[in-house]
């Protein structure tokens, strides 16, 4: 674990909708300051719910969360002062232009850096006088990102902003994000179910499935310690994470070890997508509820 201070924390976090539907089940997480963390998982894994508890949109059923040490449900304004947020579908005001959105942010948020946000949009060639209604999905996402970056918040929470973007728009979005995060020294949590896109941009990886954290590691460690293949004998001291169907229907086993020499013949290093798939497969059998 890094020595950096913890900026996002969840302790025994559980969130239930209705009487039985547990979106999150006993989440324990501590994200250190700096870098981009990918929050990966399938639909209904609880990614949005987790992010929404950090911005005070959802109240934990059990457990607690903090943002920069502040409980967002008890002190939402205090917590949000540290956060820039990009929602799942960046819904902008149809009646406003791009520059109007920046002006609105100036009015709503003390210290909003309009020039910085404008500069980010200028670099992408998004004109200020263009109506939000006429922007493409990618441009809308960029405006939402510029609004979040203009807050100069030390924590950026991005709730699947890539989901509806084409590959080029995704790449541009990630480029702007990584540039800004590294320039500002901010901490970003980017939820997505598109693993390949986040692989290059992110420093850390959280795999979420059935409302639980299945893996939390740096991307570099996740890649260096996971192996995959069809071998049934993995070798001594090698932990089998899960088995799942490969692209040709073969049975693949994801293995984990820090001792590369212990790996049996026939195994190769896993890609990040395979690591994620393996951990998602490992979560299938887990119950989606927390014990009372």
């Amino acid at each position, binding site marked *: 674990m890094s020595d950096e201070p913890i900026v996002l924390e969840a302790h025994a976090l559980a969130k239930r909708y209705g009487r039985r539907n547990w979106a999150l089940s006993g989440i324990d997480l501590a994200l250190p300051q700096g870098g981009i963390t990918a929050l990966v998982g399938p639909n209904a894994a609880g990614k949005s719910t987790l992010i929404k508890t950090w*911005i005070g*949109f*959802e109240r934990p059923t059990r457990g607690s969360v903090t943002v920069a040490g502040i409980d967002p449900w008890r002190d*939402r*304004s205090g917590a*949000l*002062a540290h*956060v*820039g*947020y990009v*929602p799942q*579908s*960046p*819904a*902008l*005001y*149809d*009646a*406003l232009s791009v520059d*109007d959105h920046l*002006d*609105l*942010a*100036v*009015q*709503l*948020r*003390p210290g*909003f850096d309009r020039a910085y946000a404008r500069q980010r949009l200028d670099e992408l060639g998004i004109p200020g006088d263009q109506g939000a209604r006429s922007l493409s999905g990618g441009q809308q996402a960029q405006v*939402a990102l510029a*609004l979040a970056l203009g*807050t100069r918040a030390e924590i950026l929470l991005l709730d699947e902003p890539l989901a509806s973007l084409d590959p080029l728009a995704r790449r541009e979005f990630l480029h702007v994000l990584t540039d800004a995060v590294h320039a500002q020294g901010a901490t970003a949590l980017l939820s997505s179910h598109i693993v390949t896109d986040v692989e290059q941009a992110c420093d850390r990886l959280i795999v979420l499935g059935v409302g639980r954290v299945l893996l939390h590691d740096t991307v570099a460690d996740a890649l260096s310690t996971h192996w995959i293949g069809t071998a049934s004998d993995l070798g001594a001291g090698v932990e089998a994470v899960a088995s799942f169907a490969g692209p040709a229907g073969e049975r693949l086993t994801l293995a984990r070890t820090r001792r590369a020499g212990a790996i049996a013949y026939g195994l190769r290093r896993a890609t990040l997508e395979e690591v994620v798939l393996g951990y998602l497969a490992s979560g299938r059998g887990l119950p989606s509820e927390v014990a009372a």
Partner: protein
Amino acid sequence: MSRLGSWLVLSFRLHRWEVLASLVGTAVLAAVMLWLASQLRFLAASEPGCPDPASYVGGGCEQFAQRFSNLGDWGRQLLLVSWGTPFGMGLVLGVPLVSREVEHRTAGIAWTLSRSRGWWLARRVAFLALVLIVLLAALATVSEILAAAVLPTLQLDSDFTWHGRRGWLIVARGLAALGIGVLIGAIVGRLLPAMLTAAFVSVLVFVGFSLGMDRWLEADAVLVPAMNGNAASEVGELSLGWRIELLNGQVITPDELYGRDGNVNVNEDMDGRLYNSPDGTLRPENIIGWSRELLVPGRLYRQVVLRESAVATGLGLLLLLGAAGVVARRRPT
């Protein structure tokens, strides 16, 4: 652009259609009212020999009075519209404020950007309240001008004629309707269902408000003799309804009388005496009391308008506080 200017421009753009609809509607209504008032005044000035154009006074004034009455009827209709305008405008401006943000998912960005949701709501409500107050104040003024033109011989500042259709109560009722609209919009979170719900709720609130104010005014009202439920006093007083003064001096409402005895059959003679006579004959032994009407004197008009305006404004502020509470707790989608 200054911060104030920027706030005004952005607030207008966010509420463009409802503000324009309110503005155009009020402007057209006020223009027609002013035109009609000028026509009535011109007509009255053209016949100086007919001092009271609102009544048939003989002496060759009948034709003039008829023309004046015809125009005055239009004035009465317009004043009825001015009675309903604050409710319509309050809902049109208030309901979309939160409900559209939630429905269009823009609340997610706005509420995370803003220093607090209360701050966000206060800024938005302030603009809409400003628009509503300016427009309804203009309508309130114009409605007084029209009422004075239709009834030129009355002192309308001490007269309850067309109470609620003219004057500052229009503005106060608009603020109450705005509060209802914002609160219901925040609770429902979808524009059309919220609009329908708010319209229904505002009818209930208005009925409750009227009943409550009538009860409050009873303390200031006087009991006067009445015949067939109508007071034999001059116009300009506010009637709180028919009452029955029993032989023992107790004053009750007709509902209370029928509640005591469902079989009672009340008949009234020319002097306002009330009889319980199943067969319709008016015998002295069947007298149960006298017909009375509860009236608020016209001299209290300004005081009553001030009181009702304060209550309506207070109600509006209370509802807006409730809306702030809902906004603070609700999900943005």
